[in-house]
């Protein structure tokens, strides 16, 4: 059994991190760099929307870029909040559809979290319920 995601991040509309969770590892910082780098790819993908007719209008952006060890996937909501998920390249059990479902679940959890009147939009996410969903995505199953 392999891990599912190794890193899950939520990035605000203004491109600052709202939430980032990684599996315990020695170089956690590396994931921060990976997520940060992916934002340029996200930007490029969404700025092309509306220019040509056959572009992607789905919220799920698919694979952003692969590195030697990891694959980075992206998802942008209509409100320009970005979700980034990093999985290990060696993980072949995760197909595009599984990743899409994962993002849908993450989006659902984000919406529920945002609907909490005690949360101030734009602040870091500290909701335990949200974190549990993320942990569920990172645990092996």
């Amino acid at each position, binding site marked *: 059994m392999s891990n599912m995601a190794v890193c899950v991040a939520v990035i605000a*509309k203004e491109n600052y991190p709202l939430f980032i969770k990684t599996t315990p590892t020695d170089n956690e910082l590396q994931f921060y760099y990976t997520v940060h780098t992916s934002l340029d790819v996200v930007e490029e993908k*969404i700025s092309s*929307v*509306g220019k040509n007719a056959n572009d*992607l*209008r*789905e*919220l799920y952006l698919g694979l952003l870029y692969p590195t030697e060890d990891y694959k980075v996937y992206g998802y*942008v*909501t*209509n*409100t*320009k*909040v970005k979700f980034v998920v990093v999985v290990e390249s060696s993980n072949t059990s995760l197909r595009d559809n599984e990743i899409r479902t994962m993002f849908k679940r993450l*989006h*659902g959890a*984000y*919406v529920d979290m*945002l*609907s909490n*009147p005690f949360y101030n*939009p734009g602040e870091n996410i500290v909701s335990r319920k949200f974190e549990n969903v993320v942990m569920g995505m990172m645990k092996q199953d």
Partner: protein
Amino acid sequence: MADEVPFEFLHMELVAHIHNTSTKEENDTCIAKLESLGYRVGLSLIERFTKDCSRFKDELDMMKFICKDFWNLVYKKQIDNLRTNHQGVYVLQDNKFRFLTQLSNGKQYMEAAPKYLAFPCGLIRGALCSLGINCIVTAEVSAMPACKFQIQIQRL
């Protein structure tokens, strides 16, 4: 049909509560308070409503969403008329605005209308702001229960 009634009552009570807990002179702060409440609710609602939508093409696409889907989900009807000057001003006309239908159709309660429109204005502003459109929303009533919302987009 019944599920929108609690929302209507809740809104009425919200308006009444905010006005009862403040003195007469503070009318403007009541409006501002209601508007910012609406703004926060708008932020959450738009996230939920657009969850399964495809990405919007442009500004007009978003406006149409507000007029059709958003209005339908909140007020169980669509906006009756959407007009724009293509320079950043949109006018949304609702011929039978839900929050005004319980008020007399005559001129009698005309001055009470603004307090029932502050929350809806904030709702629109919050939703659009979340979609990336900064704007000012104002409402205008010339004959109850019809209502016009004017959206003025702030471009930098």
